[in-house]
């Protein structure tokens, strides 16, 4: 059986950035838990050390931690990198986080002239074949780590002609086959819905909320597509947009309260700005808690 006992507290977390270490450690704020990117705390030879690990250990004594992977390449064609999985297990064993999550995406390609890690969450078609592969990979992660993982819905910019499943249908099937949980990124839903011309509220209605262990909120940028229509980019570099707050409120009303994270990864602001985004989320969360 997978360990499903650990979970995030019902409150608001933020993506941890080292520049906020003393604000988080010392001040009064609405943040109840922290999320880290797993790959920032890994060593190539031996374990990672130094200030980043020391700060993480200190924070994990005081806050529940969510370990969020960006490099496992769950949606990759090849097998999971056993070295990377071992590094992840080492980190999880050391930190004993409240949650581990990864993405429905791929980022590593390990054959041919262009092999490497490409540092982006790349898209996959939704077919019977990719479903089987994603499930195999999640089974391997969950059995290696001995715990349940959460899988995050991607931000999409394009579609695949070969897809035979809708995204929610695909995610439902993954949950059913692997017993994994889901991370519902509400900003990604909004971005994908705009870019793929689907209805974000229909997506939330159809989502298997009983499997959701965490919600993500973040900022996006606006560009233009081939026809001059808005193309939204999941940039995590600004405040959560107003329509995403509306969609979040709708998701909470539909699904009930969920631990919620504010993600801000580029042009990281002063702590006060991030804390005020967290307070906005906490206010909405409290309204469905009573």
């Amino acid at each position, binding site marked *: 059986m997978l360990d499903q006992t650990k979970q995030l507290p019902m409150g608001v977390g933020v993506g941890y950035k080292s520049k906020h270490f003393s604000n988080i450690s010392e001040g009064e704020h609405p943040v109840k838990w922290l999320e880290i990117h797993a790959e920032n705390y890994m060593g190539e030879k031996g374990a990672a050390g130094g200030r980043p690990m020391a700060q993480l250990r200190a924070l994990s004594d005081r806050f529940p931690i969510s370990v969020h992977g960006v490099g496992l390449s769950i949606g990759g064609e090849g097998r999971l990198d056993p070295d990377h999985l071992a590094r992840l297990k080492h980190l999880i064993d050391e930190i004993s986080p409240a949650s581990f999550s990864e993405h429905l995406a791929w980022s590593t390609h390990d054959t041919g002239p262009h092999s490497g890690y490409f540092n*982006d969450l*790349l898209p996959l078609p939704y077919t019977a074949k990719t479903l089987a592969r994603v499930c195999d990979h999640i089974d391997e992660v969950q059995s290696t780590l001995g715990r349940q993982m959460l899988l995050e819905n991607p931000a999409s910019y394009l579609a695949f002609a070969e897809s035979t499943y809708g995204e929610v249908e695909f995610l439902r099937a993954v949950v059913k086959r692997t017993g994994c949980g889901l991370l519902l990124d509400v900003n990604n839903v909004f971005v994908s819905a705009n870019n793929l011309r689907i209805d974000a509220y229909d997506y939330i209605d159809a989502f298997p909320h009983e499997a959701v262990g965490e919600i993500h909120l973040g900022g996006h940028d606006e560009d233009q597509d081939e026809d001059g229509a808005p193309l939204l980019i999941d940039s995590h570099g600004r405040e959560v947009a107003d329509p995403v707050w509306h969609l979040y409120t709708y998701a909470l009303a539909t699904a009930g309260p969920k631990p919620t994270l504010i993600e801000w990864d580029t042009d990281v602001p002063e702590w006060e700005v991030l804390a005020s985004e967290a307070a906005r989320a906490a206010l909405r969360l409290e309204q469905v808690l009573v």
Partner: protein
Amino acid sequence: MRQQDFIQAALAPEAPVPTGLITPSGAPATRRFDVYRNNIIVGLKEAIAASYPAVKSLVGDAFFEAMTGDYVRAHPPKTPILPLYGADFAEFIDGFAPASRLPYLADVARLEYALRQSYHAEDTCPVPAAEFSDPLLFTRQVVLAPTLIWLASAYPVTKLRRFALDGDRPSGGAEDVLITRPGYDPIATAFPPGTIAVLDALRDGMALANAAELAPSDLDLSQFLGTLLKGGAIIDILEGDHDD
């Protein structure tokens, strides 16, 4: 669509979009595919810029942009550990013709990467300095910390780095450089050329007293040992005399 085709097209700015990637109306997803192209290259370039601020300062923003664009396309990360990406950036600079007028540039890159490696290296427990007062210990093999890194340069590479970051005028010639990490912040200390032969010998198992004989005549041995001890660079002393 194979992921191989996706990556190949993503790394080649002029390549056509792989077939089967479409817009909501079924047309080829050209602008949309560019989002991935841009994300991959910009993200990797930012990772290199974060590791190599002195190299960036020495060549200027525009040159650095162009150089790192070539680098990240040809040398994507081998692992997803982005903080350690760019281990072979110095070798790339060595072979990058437009940078040949700055022959010291690759060594500045080597120094910057060594500092980064030391910053992230595994924590270990240094041998307390008091234990070194026993002369017997100089006849024993020592174990060096993963935070200790050394390199040799034909240029005053530590001063060039400081010049790049702080504007101090560089002077002097070749240097051997020791990177140590007292606490959490690595420091680079310059020593006379030939000094790293001592560290190579220690790493290969020679006792401290014998390795010290390999030192260049102008090396201040007590300063050298002080740098190692203050930097927590010796993490174990093995039992038993060691005969070289």
